[in-house]
């Protein structure tokens, strides 16, 4: 069953068409990657799904329910991006408590304990979030993003600017988390290894349109390239 269905989604900012009538769907427990050069419409697409931007036309259906003016599904969705931060002056534990309460998490103490354990947050729990390294901050953001056991998770470049070790920690965590939890994930990333490793399906975007799609293996074979990065470069440079 499709958890998220996008039909003919379009966003215009004046004359500029940021997203051009794109359609795709994500099933429960499926990870779909949005790939494309900067400014191709990935963030706008994610923002429309999150209700941050009103689409010009098209529809977003979540759990077979059409998204109206009021976003009915935010309590079961979540989002993480290194470009969106948690309150810097609050301690990690305080941020987790605030967001557990905001998402009305049942048995929040237990959930927070579990996140501390799984994301290795114990050593930084009483540190102010603003004093953490980018890797540590990323782990805390991820903890916030799954604090409500989301049915739909949107990740915007989750490992951008992380060292390989921390990046791998996050990817391994997401792989394991997905095995244990049924969750539809939309992943926007520029890291091709990450996309190959985490996603079940890839959407290649360029200038607001989906120009190709398929599994990573299928796309590599179809374009006769060695890896997804080469496919990306070919499509991005194609006139």
């Amino acid at each position: 069953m499709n958890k998220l269905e996008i039909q003919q989604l379009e966003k215009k900012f004046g004359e500029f068409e940021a997203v051009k009538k794109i359609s795709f769907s994500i099933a429960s427990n499926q990870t779909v990657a949005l790939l494309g050069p900067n400014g191709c419409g990935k963030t706008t697409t994610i923002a429309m799904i999150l209700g941050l931007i009103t689409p010009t036309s098209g529809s977003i259906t979540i759990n077979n329910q059409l998204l109206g003016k009021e976003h009915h599904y935010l309590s079961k969705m979540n989002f993480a991006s290194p470009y969106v931060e948690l309150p810097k002056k609050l301690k990690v534990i305080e941020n987790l408590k605030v967001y557990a309460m905001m998402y009305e998490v049942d048995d929040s103490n237990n959930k927070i304990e579990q996140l501390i354990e799984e994301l290795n947050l114990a050593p930084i729990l009483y540190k102010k979030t603003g004093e953490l390294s980018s890797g540590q901050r990323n782990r805390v953001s991820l903890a916030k993003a799954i604090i409500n056991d989301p049915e739909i998770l949107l990740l915007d470049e989750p490992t951008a600017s992380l060292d390989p070790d921390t990046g791998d920690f996050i990817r391994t965590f997401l792989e394991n988390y997905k095995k244990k939890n049924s969750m539809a994930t939309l992943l926007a990333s520029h890291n091709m290894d990450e996309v190959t490793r985490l996603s079940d399906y890839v959407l290649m975007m360029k200038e607001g349109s989906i120009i190709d799609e398929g599994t990573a293996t299928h796309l590599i074979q179809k374009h006769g390239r060695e890896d997804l990065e080469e496919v990306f470069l070919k499509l991005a440079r194609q006139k």
Partner: protein
Amino acid sequence: MKIKRILSLMLRHLYLIKASVPRIIDLIYWPTVQIILWGFVSKFFTMHSSYFNNTAGIILSAAILYDFLFRSSISYNMLFLEEIWSRNLINLFVSPLKVGEIVIALTCTALLRTLIGLVPAVLIAIPLFGISLLELGYPLILLLLSLYIFGITLGLLVTSGLVRFGPSFENIAWASLFFIAPIGCIYYPVEILPTWLQPVALALPLAHIFEETRSILIHHTVNYSNIYYALSLNAVYLSIALLTFYQSFKSAKVKGSLINVGE
């Protein structure tokens, strides 16, 4: 509307206040300095002005009430700006928090912030100048309510600007109350203003609130029509502010500026 979600945003700001002693000192320091300054000015006028000679405390009471308004509005703006500065707004907008819940949470937290700053200053005024706001009697509750609603109204209008135009609107946040102060008739009667400006002043709740404060302290009579006008005008302005706030959210979503508010 869920209480738990409203409390979560309040908790976020309480953690922030609790974590920083300089922040608490800052909250208390400015109202205290303001009240001590106006306390001495008030004392001077009491001794040297026939208008004020039998009515010690008019200026100081007005200063305290104005500071209550000022703190309410600034607190509301500060709480919203805090979310912008910490780049946390997107996290709030993509959470289940409704716009109405954000407004209520900020309104309640702004009151708490205002009281933290003002209560010590008001208590200091009692032994230092022999002046207590309680002399205004039970209408004080209605006057404070009126001021608080107007403070939140201004806060809502400024935050609407922040949502719509981004952090560049921040300077307006600081200046908003100074625009209105001259026609608020805080320290002088409406009649002092030029005739053409008097209707403008009377169209604001402030003129009625401070007229009533003077009426109680000078004539020892409560003129409920002033309170009625103040509350009615407040209802109109608050409705406009709420509509503006919702409209600015709607407009920001269409223009896509919501995702840039925190940058």
